[in-house]
Each structure stands twice: as structure tokens, then as C-alpha cells.
């Protein structure tokens, strides 16, 4: 009856921050259910770090075939682990990979599924969770009506809570079949050494106010000082100034970060919908009437070409004195 989490690792075999957030969340839910937390890891040799966040047991899967993420195969691993432990609640994070496999896991376990879950369950019986809906314009209190349940936790919605535990480590050999690998990874293109929007604590985003792709150095320099990922608004991606993968907003990538800095972005409702889960929002825009000022926490009215380089220099100084 333990709670099962999938603790996701990066391609370098280190746990992602979302894995620790998920463990923290699972521990709290497990306490209210009087049960334990079991984690599944794939090709991650050293799982000991999970004990910092309250995980009681880890099922370690090592298999060369699982080197690349394959949704069907990974879903099969989670299903078999859930059945082995007689699990009624499976928790996943909201990375692209976890969201890809979540519905497959749910169908395989005859489970109900709720995505974008924010906060602890509203009620344990009946089991109800709060999730975002209507592109962050509302929350839906959603009841899951089956015995087995799968949830995916929205990033940055719970945070990290340390809670030391004694971790039992066990090797787990899931039985995989050829059908699990019927979608085959041919190649992966990933900018190495760059902070991704999904992993970043800070995102610096630019809009049409920056006038052209040649000015993106402004955004990149500020991002570099903050260890931030860079992003852009929809018009910027549609104009081809920046790649699709940087487009954030309702039809782009969602952003749920600690700090979101918008430069030269007016704040169309679709853009705000995509970034509204971010905790603190800063806007720099020359137009005091820009709608972004209505949703931002801090704002500066002025010329980005004047302000951003000065802000970058000052932050560099601040970081040097505070690290």
C-alpha cells in the first residue's frame, strides 16, 4: 500500500530537482495515509540522495535498453513496480517524459489520472486534489474515483522539504517485451551545458520589444548572471528570431519558475496563461499601459536597451558579493 513515485534522472544519471520535490510531496501524503514512500529509479546507480527527502525504499532498475526514454517501456516498468508493491497511488512529476507516459501508466493500472496537481490532496476520502485548469486561469477540485490513482505534480508547486529516512535499496528487474520498444529513438538534439526552461529556477524572456534577434545578447547576458534559462514570446518564435523550444505561453512551453523576468513583452493573455504559475514576475517595458504590469510583482517602465545592461552589471556585482 506504499505510495510509488518515479524519481526521474537526467541523462547524466543524476536526479532531477523535480524528483526531490516529488519525494517531499509523497512523504507528506504518505504520513496522512500512514504508509511509506517507494521510489522507482532507472539506470541511476546511487539512489542514496533520496533518503534526504523521506523515501523509505527504492526499486532500482538497471537496463541498457532503457538508456533512452521510451514511454511504453518506462510505463511498463512503473506498472510492474506498482503491482509488485500493491500500490494504490502513483505519483509522477510534470516533465515532458513523465507527462508522456502518465496516461499509459493509468490505463495499464486501470487507474484514474489527474495532471497539473498543485498542493496536497484536498480530501483523502473521497480522494480529491486541486489542479490547474483553463490554462492557469482557474483551479479544478477533481475527484479520482477508482481504487488506483495516478497524479502528476505541477513543477514548483510544493517545493523541497528535507525529511531524513532510512532507505532500503533493492534491485528490480522489470520484464520488458519487444512491443515496449516499438517507438525507437534515432537521435537526440540537446544543447549541452545550457539551462533548460524545464529545469530552471529563473527564466529571462524576451519579446518583440527587443526589435530583432541580433539584440538577444541582452537576454543571454542577464540570464548568464542569474544561471537562468532564456525564453521568448510567441511573436518572437513565429518571426523566427528564436527557436520554438524557447516559446513560452499557452501554446508554447509552460513556465513555473521562482523568478520570471519579461523584457519587452506586452503580456497578451495567452502569454500570461503560460507563465502565471511562476512565483515572482518582473516586467521591463517602455509602455506603462502594457498588460504585463497588471500581473507582475515588480515592474520598471523604461527602455530595455538602457535598463537591461545596467541591471546585468549590477547583478554581477551583487552575485560577486553574495556568493
Amino acid at each position, binding site marked *: 500500500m506504499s505510495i510509488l513515485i518515479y524519481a526521474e534522472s537526467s541523462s547524466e544519471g543524476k536526479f532531477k530537482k523535480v524528483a526531490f520535490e516529488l519525494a517531499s510531496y509523497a512523504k507528506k501524503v504518505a504520513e496522512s495515509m500512514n504508509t511509506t514512500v517507494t521510489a522507482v529509479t532507472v539506470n541511476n546507480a546511487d539512489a542514496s540522495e533520496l533518503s534526504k527527502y523521506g523515501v523509505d525504499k527504492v526499486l532500482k532498475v538497471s537496463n541498457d535498453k532503457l538508456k533512452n526514454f521510451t514511454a511504453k517501456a518506462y510505463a511498463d516498468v512503473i506498472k510492474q513496480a506498482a503491482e509488485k508493491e500493491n500500490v494504490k497511488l502513483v505519483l509522477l512529476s510534470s516533465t515532458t517524459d513523465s507527462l508522456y507516459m502518465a496516461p499509459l501508466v493509468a490505463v495499464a493500472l486501470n487507474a484514474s489520472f489527474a495532471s497539473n496537481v498543485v498542493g496536497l490532496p484536498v480530501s483523502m476520502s473521497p480522494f480529491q486534489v486541486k489542479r490547474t485548469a483553463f490554462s492557469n486561469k482557474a483551479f479544478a477540485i*477533481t475527484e479520482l474515483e477508482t481504487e488506483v490513482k495516478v497524479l502528476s505534480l505541477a513543477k514548483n508547486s510544493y517545493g523541497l522539504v528535507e525529511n531524513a529516512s532510512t532507505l532500503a535499496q533493492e534491485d528490480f528487474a522489470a520484464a520488458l517485451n519487444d512491443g515496449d520498444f516499438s517507438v525507437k529513438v534515432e537521435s537526440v538534439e540537446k544543447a549541452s551545458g545550457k539551462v533548460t526552461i524545464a529545469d530552471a529556477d529563473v527564466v529571462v524572456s524576451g519579446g518583440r520589444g527587443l526589435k530583432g534577434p541580433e539584440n538577444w545578447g541582452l537576454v543571454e547576458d542577464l540570464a548568464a548572471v542569474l544561471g537562468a534559462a532564456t525564453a521568448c514570446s510567441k511573436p518572437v518564435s513565429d518571426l523566427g528570431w528564436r527557436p520554438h523550444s524557447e516559446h513560452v505561453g499557452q501554446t508554447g512551453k509552460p513556465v513555473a519558475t521562482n523568478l520570471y523576468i519579461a523584457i519587452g513583452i506586452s503580456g497578451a493573455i495567452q502569454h500570461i496563461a503560460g507563465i502565471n504559475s511562476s512565483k515572482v514576475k518582473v516586467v521591463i517595458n517602455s509602455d506603462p499601459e502594457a498588460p504585463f504590469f497588471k500581473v507582475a510583482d515588480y515592474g520598471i517602465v523604461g527602455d530595455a536597451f538602457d535598463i537591461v545592461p545596467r541591471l546585468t552589471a549590477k547583478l554581477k556585482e551583487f552575485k560577486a558579493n553574495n556568493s
Partner: protein
Amino acid sequence: MKILVCISHVPDTTSKINFTSGDAEFDTNGVQFVINPNDEFGLTRAIWFQEQQGATVTVVNVGGPDTEPTLRKALAIGANEAIRVNAAPKDGFFVATQLAEVIKAGNYDLVIAGKESLDYNGGMVPGMLAGILGYNFVNSCTDLKIDGTSAMASREIDGGKEIVSTSLPLIIGGQKGLVEEKDLKIPNMRGIMTARTKALNVLEPVSSEATTKAVKFEKPAPKSAVKLINADNLDELISLLHNEAKVI
């Protein structure tokens, strides 16, 4: 190649979101409905296959008669025929079980559904279809090429993209990138006229239970006003971010 494009009928992205019946139901009053944007990218790619590779394109929606204008728009854009499963879309699982029946009956080779709808944002229908039918599945798909029964697809991953190979029958969770924004088609007068004569078949739902239920809706708490900082006083911004917001 027979393609089925699953269409969600959702509030326009600029809609104000309100609730009625004691915050238990979405208030459709004054709301303009559109083809779910993620579905529209998929539909446009499907039409490309129709024009370039001789595919036939069927669109399907699970919903009441009020969703028919959205299906007619898909026909005006170029789909060959439409199906409406006559049932309120109770939850993602319910919708997936209805669509799975349509797919089995129609023997579709390729099924494209948006990776998520912009109303309930469940993000589960394409994956559940793949789970129920045992078909191959690529989610967050940003490019798709079909040659005979082989498929090559790009998938967005965190921080980049991945190229995968697979085969039909195939379920795609679609999004922007399948086609570009500028390639989206606005129905012309001829398309609208032709759409009126195309078949829109209404099917009764199969028996199926929803597994989740939205019992109540809430709106986010109103935000306090923005703190404006003078452009000549950037130290103040840094101090606020460090001491007050504690994010740097």
C-alpha cells in the same frame, strides 16, 4: 492512408473564465468556442497528408450538438468528413473510450489529437487512446513524416528534441511545430460552402464511466498591485528580489 483527427471544442484563448451553479460548472455565457489550438496544428498537418499523399481525413469530436459549428469549421478547412459522438465529454478517460470505438470501427492508420486541450488541460486523451488500443504513440510531436507504414517523428523534450522512428497504426499527441502558425488555414468561402454538403455523422456513445470528476472550480486570488521601480534605482529592484521575494 486513413487519418482521424480528434477535435476538442474549447473556449477561445482570450475568453474570460467564469463558473456557475455554485462554482461547479463552466459558464459558457458569452464564450466563443474554437478548435483547440493543439488540434488545429494536427488538422493542418493531416490536410497536408491529404493534399500530398492522398490521405482521407475524418475529424471527430465527443460533444453535444452545440459543438457542430467547430466540426463544420474543420470540414471547411478541408477534412473529408466528420463524426460527432453524441455525449457530454465527462472526463479524459470517457472521451478516450469513445474515441477508441470510433478508431476500431473506422480502421484508421493515423490518429492525431492535441497533446492537451486548453480547457481542462488534462493531457491524457492521446496517451489513453494508445494505452487502450495498444497502438504506437508519440507525444508532443513537432514533425511527422509517413512513408508507407513507416513513420519518422520529432518529439519535443525538455531542452531540445528527439527524432523517433515507428510504424502505423500510430497515435500522435500534436502541438505547434507539426505545422507552423503561418500555415494554419482560415476557411475560405468555397470551403465553407463545401463543408455544408459534407457528411457529419452522429454516433451514439458506448457505455463507459468517467473515472474523474471536477467537483468545484476556483479562481486564483486577486493579485496585489505591481511595485513600480524607477529605472534609475535598479539597486532597489535587486534588494527587493533578494530581501522581500527571496528569489536571488
